[in-house]
């Protein structure tokens, strides 16, 4: 198992609230890691640490280290823009820009002065399994797409920057089962090239899509292991209690 991201004794406070407590976790390359746990357990806070999204929260204070390959993510010399190019993120609610489908994908590559924009748009839409549905209407507003299509557009937009890692924060919570199934199939097909981390409240989804699962509770990492082991025979009682619905 080659680790793509490693957190070492990561602690995070929002003001006085200690939101992450000594999180040491290795995220293997080209696998899907699911983070599960009840609301407020720190799982979203944790993935937001991985591309420094918490920098935007003024009250947040971080201790400990996070490595992306050999880059210390919280080193002062680390270029955050470059980091976020390598570690992309897809959010809970689809958030396309109020512009055409084409321009949504082209936005990032254009800003970074990339060429062959047509090719990037086509490749990204094909990788996100959206090409066949939108290839005839690339100039149409992205906001006219369905929720599921919008979310795949956001994934395509993330992939246009050729990231190495994709963070998914509850990507399907606003989608119907068909759209959810498409996103899950998409994640499976992206495994060959990308390292993926998904935060989800849907335990069946975690069980379906992920290779490894980490359970968070009250800011602590309680247990991490192969998904099959976590859902068939978890080692910790609190993991068992959560996934069998004894609390949540």
């Amino acid at each position, binding site marked *: 198992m080659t680790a793509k991201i490693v957190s070492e004794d990561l602690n995070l406070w929002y003001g006085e609230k200690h939101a992450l407590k000594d999180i040491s976790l290795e995220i293997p390359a080209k696998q899907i890691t699911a983070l599960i746990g009840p609301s407020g357990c720190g799982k979203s806070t944790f993935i937001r640490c991985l591309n420094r999204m918490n920098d935007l929260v003024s009250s947040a204070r971080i201790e400990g280290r996070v490595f992306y390959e050999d880059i210390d993510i919280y080193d002062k010399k680390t270029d955050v823009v470059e980091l976020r190019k390598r570690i992309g993120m897809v959010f809970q609610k689809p958030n396309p820009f109020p512009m055409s489908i084409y321009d949504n994908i082209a936005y990032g590559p254009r800003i970074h002065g990339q060429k062959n924009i047509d090719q990037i748009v086509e490749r990204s839409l094909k990788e996100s399994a959206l090409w066949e549905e939108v290839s005839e209407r690339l100039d149409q507003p992205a906001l006219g797409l369905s929720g599921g299509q919008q979310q795949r557009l956001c994934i395509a937009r993330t992939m246009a920057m050729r990231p190495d890692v994709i963070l998914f924060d509850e990507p399907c919570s606003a989608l119907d089962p068909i759209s959810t199934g498409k996103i899950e199939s998409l994640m499976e097909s992206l495994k060959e090239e990308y390292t993926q981390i998904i935060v989800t409240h849907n335990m069946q989804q975690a*069980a379906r899509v992920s290779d490894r699962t980490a359970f968070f509770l009250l800011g602590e990492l309680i247990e991490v292991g192969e998904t099959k082991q976590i*859902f*068939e025979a978890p080692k910790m009682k609190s993991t068992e209690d959560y996934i069998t*619905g004894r609390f949540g």
Partner: protein
Amino acid sequence: MIPYRQRYRKDLSDLKRLTKDLADRVGEAIERSVLALTDSNVELAREIIKNDQDVDDLSIRIENLCMELLVLQQPMARDLRRIIGILKIGIDLERIGDLAVDIARVTAQSHNKIEITKLEFIPRMAEISGRMLRQSMEALEKDDADMARQITKWDYEIDGLYVKARDKLLNIIIERPEVIKEGTLLLMVNRHLERTGDHICNVCETIVYMVEAKREHLN
């Protein structure tokens, strides 16, 4: 506190109760089938054969409840192991019920030409099987994997009795060829009781899996 997944918890506990009912029925059937044989009680044998329909109905009811819980509740971890375990235990118990019926059918055909009471090993096997089965349901109720492991040790005694009864029957057949039909039927009864012990060991292995998520071969 608002009761959480109350119906689900009740269904899970019903599964254990129904499984114990099934075990009680098939355990009783095994012991009574040997009693019918020793007493040449054809009426009792017929009753056992008739009652097997209830055993089949109950095992289907358990299977349906397991399916319903799998489909509607998406159980995980211990709950998932419990449901899968109950499905497996149900199959073993239903097979024990079938073996009791096979033993009961022999009663109608053997005409008591061999005095079964002289084959004391056979009633003893039935008695041990009944006790193992009752204890296995206690282990299931208490989620006690160690108890389940201990119960399987009794199977060595059943296996020993099986060999003794088989050798004795073979000697009888050799000495009195005119009882070859009855002797062969009793060899089958002997084999059915030995298999009953194996099925109970399977039940115990499943209980260990349900409680500790370990697959152990105890038989």
